[in-house]
């Protein structure tokens, strides 16, 4: 795709808003990576639309974020999807979702981009985000019987694991 024919972030956001209406919660085109914040329960259909109609055939990265800060102004968790296209390396966009801390559930995109499978397992393992509809949402890095999700900012390390002392002397 040439520079002229490629849709820019503004056009992508507009097409998403035309198609999905109020499922697009917020749009920020001034950010380093222009993004749309979307409804967690609609992220799979928006992803399918972006892949099939706007040419985003590649999920570059799926990250989870803990927005907890020291003043407790925000306790939300989040997931960020960086989208790209092959072979058009400049065709980029970003999706974000915000999730409540006590029930962080979002639709899986592993059926849209198979690479999301392990990314979502990692986000579940380390941040405790539940991906609804994932075929095998089990821990990928920590031990199978590990308790808690270690990359959350309010996580406290256990003192022992299977009788092994884990405290810092």
């Amino acid at each position, binding site marked *: 795709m040439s520079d002229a024919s490629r849709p820019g972030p503004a056009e992508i956001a507009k097409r998403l808003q035309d198609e999905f209406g109020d499922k697009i919660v917020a749009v920020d085109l001034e950010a380093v990576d222009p993004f749309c914040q979307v409804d967690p329960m609609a992220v799979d259909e928006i992803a399918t639309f972006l892949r099939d109609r706007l040419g985003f055939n590649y999920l570059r990265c799926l990250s989870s974020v803990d927005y907890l800060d020291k003043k407790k102004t925000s306790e939300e968790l989040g997931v960020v999807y960086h989208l790209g296209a092959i072979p058009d390396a400049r065709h980029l966009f970003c999706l974000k979702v915000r999730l409540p801390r006590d029930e962080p559930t979002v639709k899986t995109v592993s059926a849209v981009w198979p690479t999301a499978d392990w990314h979502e397992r990692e986000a579940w393992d380390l941040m405790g985000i539940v991906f609804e509809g994932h075929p095998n949402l089990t821990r990928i*890095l*920590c*031990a199978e019987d*590990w308790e808690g999700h*270690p990359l959350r900012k309010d*996580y406290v*390390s256990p003192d022992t*694991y*299977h*009788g*092994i*002392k*884990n*405290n*810092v*002397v």
Partner: protein
Amino acid sequence: MAGEANIQEINFNTDAATRDNVLITTLDKVLNWTRKSSVWPMTFGLACCAIEMMATGASNYDIDRFGSGPFRATPRQADLMIVAGTVSLKMAPRVKLLYEQMPEPKYVIAMGACTISGGPYIKYGYHVLKGVDRLIPVDVYIPGCPPRPEALLEGLFRVQEKMKFERILDRTREGLRPKILVE
């Protein structure tokens, strides 16, 4: 007995045939010499320290010169466990299992900062074992991040030094080895 009589008759100073052909030593010395000259480590690397361990095994540093070349693919044939790299808590029960599968006498080298104390992960490493000596008894600690191959060779010499002064009758080798810490 006839044998006793023969021994008494031998004069080591004057009998040339005996003087040039008989060597007197102790069983302990012979056994320890054979043991220290063929320390077989286990093929077992956990992180970046294992790269240095491989370099030690390769031709530039050539651990074979000291009889320690054959890295065994099973703990049943190994004398020495070189714990080379960060031990995660997921890996810890497996490390202990491998240690228990090694036949006695067995020796452990803790190679590198992570293995000694958790290294850079000691404070925020939620999933890192903070020293492999919390799990299995360690004979020699090699500091470094990672230690150079020369340091690993020096660690091997320390293990060999330890082997040199063991007694075969001291089967439990008490006083030489700490006990397993985690049941």
